[in-house]
């Protein structure tokens, strides 16, 4: 555990050194959402509500997406595939701690940092727009729990994806694909209630929704307590599936790893 805590601290320090890069990374998420908000603002000129959302509710939804997106979207796969491709993984395998646990420490450190940076901007705006977010309600508690589970889902599935590098030399196109699919399927661009029925039904059963839009909807109080608890159970299910899949791909991948490039 000591090694993991030290890794966590190192990543935090490294991020502090490259502050401008970290701020720019946050702006990369903020910019598309800002343009989207201006677009939606124009769309609300002619109607009162769209897809069951008022102007303020939709803005709050997107702000929460900005706040959580950097934490929850699958990024860990770049670390793992980079280590496998470059052969750096060999040095980790020789160390007296598990590689996946190390990745988890890095993931948690990066996520905590992202929450801190985005929180500086997003929380005051949310507090001004919708003060009800910050009352200690069951939705807030369930939301915090669903956030934790969502990050576990992201980590497990992201790591599984990174493990594909054990079998394929270059997965950059697959990663680009993931970068296109995940934000859309997880509700980063459009809330789930906007999607046509058939697509919504499909997204309800896939893990993407439970890695972003579900915690956002719980935190914004759009889902009642019963449905939230139900969603938590589905999240736990996806965490278990993701963890099993990760253990499987990691143990199989290690066997075919040739330390090419090291």
């Amino acid at each position, binding site marked *: 555990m000591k090694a993991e805590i030290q890794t966590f601290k190192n990543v935090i320090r490294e991020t502090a050194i490259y502050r*401008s*890069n970290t701020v720019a*990374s946050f702006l990369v998420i903020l*910019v598309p959402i800002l343009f989207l908000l201006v*677009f939606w603002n124009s769309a609300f000129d002619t109607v009162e509500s769209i897809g069951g959302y008022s102007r303020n509710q939709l803005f709050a939804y997107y702000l929460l997406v900005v706040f959580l997106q950097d934490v929850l979207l699958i990024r860990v796969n770049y670390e793992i595939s980079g280590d496998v491709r470059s052969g750096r993984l060999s040095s980790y395998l020789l160390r007296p701690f598990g590689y996946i646990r190390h990745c988890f420490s890095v993931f948690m450190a990066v996520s905590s940092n992202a929450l801190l940076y985005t929180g500086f901007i997003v929380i005051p705006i949310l507090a001004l727009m919708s003060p009800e977010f910050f009352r200690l309600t069951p939705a807030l508690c369930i939301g915090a729990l669903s956030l934790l589970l969502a990050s576990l889902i992201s980590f497990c599935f992201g790591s599984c994806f990174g493990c594909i590098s054990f079998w394929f030399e270059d997965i950059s196109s697959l990663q680009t*694909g993931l970068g296109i699919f995940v934000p859309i399927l997880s509700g980063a*661009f459009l809330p789930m209630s906007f999607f046509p029925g058939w697509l919504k039904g499909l997204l309800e059963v896939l893990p993407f929704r439970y890695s972003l839009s579900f915690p956002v909807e719980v935190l914004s109080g759009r889902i009642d307590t019963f449905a939230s608890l139900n969603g938590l159970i589905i999240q736990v299910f996806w965490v278990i599936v993701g963890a099993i899949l990760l253990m499987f791909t990691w143990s199989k991948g290690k066997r075919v790893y040739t330390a090419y490039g090291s």
Partner: protein
Amino acid sequence: MSYRKAISRLINLSVRQTFEHRSNLYLNLTLQVINYGFLILFIEIIFSRVNTVAGWSVDEMQLLGVVSQSSAVLYSVFFSGGISRLQESVRTGGFDYFLLKPLDAQVHCSVSRINPLGLIALIGPLIWVAFLVSQRNLHLSLPLIPVVFFILCLGVVIRYSFGLGTAVLSFLLTKVSALQSLQSALLNQSHFPISMYSGWMRTFAIYMVPVALIANSPTLILLEGGTGYYSIILLLYSVLSVVFTRYLYTTLVKKYTSASS
């Protein structure tokens, strides 16, 4: 060796390299089609709930999406491959390779990864425009297509200037990857209608970072045959940005230390 010959050799080499990783090429093309499909779906979903957004109809928005996508594809075909590798080559000292060649290093690294096969990604969007014109009666000023293409190229020039302008900062800073992603994220917002901007956002999106002009100017010419004002701003901006980027490059390249080579 003349620039024309050198560039044609680089293209030749790039095509061969691309065919070495054919599956990657096909996957990338498929992803571009899917990406565009999602954009159409996004627009259709929104317009199933509202009739117009900032005065634009669903068909006009989709045309804007096609033009924006075309601009992104042209940039990616001609420049993005070379520019995106600049940071890494500066960090590793590989930039020496460009400096030692009898070609201008800025031109060489900019066009070192031209990938003409990427133009295939334009086929899907163009088929969609044909569908919009024939099935949904979208009226376009077709005789103005050469002008539209010229204005579209100005947008690509602006993308190039921003892309290279950010990349050359790697002569000064250790990490510019996030800045590169930021400029790319900013310029990729060109698929939104210009009339949605007001106040400071309008000033920003038209005069500071002309993201609102890149796709809107050619689209408005195609739709209305007018808006010369925006095109003139785009022309001026592209000339100034090229000059400024050249100045930035020549100034910053002097800081290059060839550290790791």
